[in-house]
């Protein structure tokens, strides 16, 4: 029983150690990679500036302008009356 426990404790501890170690190793390398990436991309962005995105998504804007237009029209019409 006790032997079993110690065996499991050992096994679990090894996994805990290796697991946290690998997770941290992975994320540390990722942090370094992200920093490297930022530098490279900053340099890339200077060489080849990103195109200005003309994001024209469906509807959203249109609805606003529609409502606005109607509201303006109504307001103006009333103001005149």
């Amino acid at each position, binding site marked *: 029983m006790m032997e079993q*426990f110690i065996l*499991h*404790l050992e*096994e*679990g*501890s090894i*996994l*805990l150690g*290796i*697991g*946290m170690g*690998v*997770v*941290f*190793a*992975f*994320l*540390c*390398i*990722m*942090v370094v*990679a*992200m*920093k490297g*990436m*930022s530098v490279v*991309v900053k340099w*890339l*962005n200077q060489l080849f500036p*990103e195109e200005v*995105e003309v994001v024209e998504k469906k509807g959203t804007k249109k609805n606003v302008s529609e409502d606005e237009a109607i509201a303006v029209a109504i307001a103006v019409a009333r103001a005149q009356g």
Partner: protein
Amino acid sequence: MNITDSLIKLWQSTGLANFVQPVDPSITNGFEQFLHQFGSPIMLVVCCFLLWLGIKKQFEPLLLVPIAFGGLLSNIPVADIAGPHGFLGIIYEAGIHQGLFPLIIFMGVGAMTDFGPLIANPKTALLGGAAQFGIFGALLLALCCFGFTLPQSGAIGIIGGADGPTSIYVTTKLAPELLGAIAVAAYSYMALVPVIQPPIMKALTTEAERKIEMKQLREVSKREKIIFPLVVLGLCIILLPDACPLIGALTFGNLCKESGVVERLSDTMQNALINIVTIFLGLSVGSKLSAEQFLTTQTLFILVLGILAFSFATAAGVLFAKIMNLFSKEKINPLIGSAGVSAVPMAARVSNKVGLEANPQNYLLMHAMGPNVAGVIGSGVAAGILLALCH
């Protein structure tokens, strides 16, 4: 065919006549005998309770409602809906057994996740690593103190990753017999994050620490966001191929989102596809809520270990943030450490809320999103380790 025979046949096919299993003489323990006999009706009540949690208490209803309903259906006597020819059994076999559904959901998660806050402040990724202590701590406990096998312990530990699809994927591979209990625990505790985390966070931080303000995050360019998923996948390929199905699905979804050239696909992953798969994933995970697998002391242990895993993860995240502050000039608010458990975006909201309580000007949400999404990657990596070493 005569009328008496037909009526008897009909009676024998009713639920009423089949609710109670006959006494099994090989079971000597009275309580076990009771569970054996009345397992199905008890599970129906349990599933109704889960439905109530999902609908009334809004515990992750998108998953808990289908899971609970799947549990209802699979505990119906005679019908055998979760059996190999029942429709939930077929869906389980096609979609869960080989890991398809959780991976597809993970694609959708990737397509919905913005890694910008993480890229803007890379070091917060380490908080998402520290929180994985919940996984391995719970594994150790499960293995040593609760008598689970190594694969089972790995599957139980992954609850601490606070990530539904990851939990289901790993459990299916390591210990499918625990899938019902682990999925229920994982989603319930994720829903309970706003209850579980704040006391731990407050206990481990001082008022002054909670008041730390963090400087606004820099803008992240589109190019960085496009390259980031490839970097993560690249690391994963080099270091831990076993995590690649999960991390690959996540980064594929994210690349589709950030690339901006396949909006149709990204949109579908975030909506139609993830919804369809969620319905079937939930129902078929629920089909593993059978009495003989769920009404065991193991389930109780899993529930206990699950909450311990969440608590360990929260504590480890907060404490690691404090450790990082010892070595760094630019202080981070330790409250964002708890967001490292994933449970996107709830854990980050909890960080924000607790932060606002201490300092009404202190908006931590975006800062907490960094460890939050890092926690998703961290859990994926931890899952890879478990898959590599636990069987």
